[in-house]
């Protein structure tokens, strides 16, 4: 049964900041119906607009960047010069109008421009505000600037990726920002639940660093209790053998794992090497680990003769966990993702049709949606300031003439 509305219809959110960590929270909530206004300025647009490709026709331009639009679909885009007194007035009107403010500037900046939580709640008493930054709002390194790609190294992810005797490896882009934005969305929604129940607003201080550590909570507890330092081990797993990636025909790869003797026997049968499953030396996890070269040779020979997706289907049919290593291009044709409508194409005035990522979960009654492409800079000034804030045409024109929207 479809309820006929989205889960967060009526919820009003204003974002100050840019790049991934703040705006991705807004996108997640916008995809379930929240009205989200992304605030930039003409002189300081969102850093994702000009600093990160890809651009339409490979030509950098303020409105041709697909990285910015990808994280800002389903939102309204406005420009406000918060250094201008008229601009600050406009910003305050927006923060009085909304339920939630999301900001990801360096600690103290939002206070300095007069939009800190204590100030805003004077005229919006049940406001929920999320401040998300590298280190959190407090602590000896609170003022550290930083991007998520580097914070992913400080939080342990890069050091845990790669071969034991090789260098750490990058995870693509600001990996940890999306951990923090996902957890940030959970925090905002929990605050909303409390507000529904108690009428009380909230100030949420999210450290992207700390959020990332929740994704490594087990290895960290292990260190605290036993002193064992987790290390990168390529694709090994202590509880499975075989466990890894194997090259297939062309440039394809499969990833597979066996977690029991039964699974190993099914794998051996599927690759035509049933005799391996009958070998008592391979009957235990320890035995298979110590014979990893022999097993990997057999698997590699079988995989190299097959196309990756076909190989994965064969092993799945035999009841063995396996999947092709999807390339990023494969994500657009993977039958599972296609069936679940993972990508929604929306038309952008400069970029044209662009694929936007739909939520990772489906709600049976109030499904999510990508309602619009990412906005061009300042596209919705009139809509937001006049329709949402109910400014008269004269008020709007006067504010614009005074540089409030520069």
């Amino acid at each position, binding site marked *: 049964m479809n309820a006929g509305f989205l889960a967060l219809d009526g919820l009003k959110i204003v974002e100050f900041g840019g790049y991934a960590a703040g705006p991705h929270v807004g996108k*997640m909530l916008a995809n379930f119906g929240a009205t989200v206004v992304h605030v930039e300025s003409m002189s300081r647009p969102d850093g994702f607009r000009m600093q990160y490709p*890809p651009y339409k026709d*490979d030509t950098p331009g303020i409105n041709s960047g*697909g990285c910015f639009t990808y994280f800002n679909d389903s939102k309204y885009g406005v420009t406000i010069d918060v250094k201008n007194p008229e601009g600050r007035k406009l910003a305050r009107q927006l923060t009085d109008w909304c339920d939630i403010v999301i900001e990801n500037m360096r600690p103290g900046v939002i206070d300095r421009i007069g939009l800190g939580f204590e100030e805003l709640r004077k005229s919006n008493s049940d406001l929920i505000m999320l401040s998300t930054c590298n280190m*959190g709002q407090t*602590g000896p390194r*609170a*003022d550290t600037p930083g*991007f998520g*790609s580097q914070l992913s*190294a*400080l939080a*342990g992810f890069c*050091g*845990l*990726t790669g071969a034991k005797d090789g*260098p750490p*490896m*990058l*995870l693509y882009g600001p990996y940890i*920002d999306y*951990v923090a934005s*996902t*957890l940030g969305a*959970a*925090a905002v*929604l*929990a605050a909303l639940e409390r507000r529904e*129940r108690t009428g009380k607003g909230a100030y*949420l201080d999210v450290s992207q*660093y700390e959020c990332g550590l*929740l*994704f490594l*909570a087990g*290895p*960290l*507890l292990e*260190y*605290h209790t036993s002193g064992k330092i987790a290390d990168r081990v*390529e694709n*090994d797993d202590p509880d499975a053998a075989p466990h890894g*990636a194997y*090259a297939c025909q062309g440039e394809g*790869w499969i990833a*597979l*794992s066996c977690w029991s003797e039964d699974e190993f026997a099914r794998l051996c049968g599927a690759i035509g090497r049933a005799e391996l499953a009958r070998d008592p030396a391979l009957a235990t996890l320890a035995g298979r680990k110590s014979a990893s070269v022999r097993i990997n040779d057999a698997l590699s020979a079988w995989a190299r003769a097959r196309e990756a997706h076909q190989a994965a289907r064969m092993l799945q049919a035999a009841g063995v966990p396996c*999947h092709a290593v999807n390339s*990023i*291009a494969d*994500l*657009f044709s993977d039958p*599972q993702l296609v069936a*679940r409508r993972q990508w929604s194409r929306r038309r952008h005035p400069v970029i044209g049709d*662009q694929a936007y*990522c739909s*939520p*990772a*979960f489906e*709600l049976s*009654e109030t499904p999510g949606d990508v309602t619009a492409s990412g906005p061009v800079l300042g596209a919705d000034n009139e809509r937001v300031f006049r329709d949402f804030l109910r400014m008269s045409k004269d008020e709007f024109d006067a504010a614009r003439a005074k540089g409030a929207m520069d």
Partner: protein
Amino acid sequence: MLQGCVVLDCSRRLGWIAGRLLADLGADVTKLEAPGSDVSSADWRALNINKKLIRADLSEPVGTRMLDDIASSADILIATPSAGTSDVRLFDYDRLRTINPRLIVVAITPFGLTGPKAQWRASDIEIMAAGGAMALAGEPEGTPLRVSAPQSYAWAGSQGAVGALTALAARWRTGRGQLVDVSAQAAVITALSHAPTFVDILGITPTRAGAYMTGRSVTGAKYRVFWPCRDGFINFILYGGAAGRRTNEQLVAWMREKGLELGPLGAMDWARFSPTRATQAEVDAMEIPIGRFIGSLTKREFLEGAHKREMLGYPVSNTADISTDPQLEARGFWQDLPGPDGRAERHCGCFVIVDGERPPLVRPSEQAEGVTRHVSEA
């Protein structure tokens, strides 16, 4: 913030963090485990802290009755139903909603409950492969890699928590629960940043970059990311923009103070430097003296020096480095609770500070106060 919200967590590894996040936010979470199942691993203890543990054999009628009994008054039920098992009937949304129409059922599975791969088996490595993450990690000509500590479970579980809370918001209007169908494969796509846009807009498929950053330059230039230092590696990148300019200026000033050879860095006008447009030859020439400088530092020296100078860049930490980071200590991130043997265990605390206070973890991972019920043994 979720005080009064009752959660029944029936998840296996794929979903553990969902209940943990809800518990940390204040929900009353009961974790159902089969009798005799292992609850001793660090992963189990870390991700099931703050929940009440109940043992119940769901293959027995008494266990099923107990499940339904708790579900009848719960707000959220989290499950990770395995295709082709009795889980499917047990956690079927249509069955559960007849017991409690207000119940939100969060089903976290590798590929989602519907679609041609709904029945496929997958653990972390296959989910990371299916979601595209392995295509982006590793040396360019080498084996695709996963992070050595499972990540897809955390991506899926945290999306499950967001899904549960989104459905909770909807319930204020509808009065009804609903099914939250989480695909771990789709959850991993969140980790790919904007990589899919290169395929979509330019027809370019991003691949493994190894220890270099690609995708920032229209000339195709690669930027070194990991620099060997005296006791490990440093993550440092030549950025542009205001923050990059300051970092680069400070780096050169730091090198100058140490009397190091600057090479082309000495004549750089950082206000005009654009990583988007720099050529590979220019980048390579700049990176030689930087490599020599970073090689002379320890991780902690870089961390403290870079902070003092407001520079971008961090050391590549391991779990020991993280556990002694003064920043985390100062914010009260770690929390000590009794472990299974009664000795204190140090856990990651709640991920958010609310109204100036970090919500405390209130329960150790296994109840030691007599409230644990062993249903199958009753």
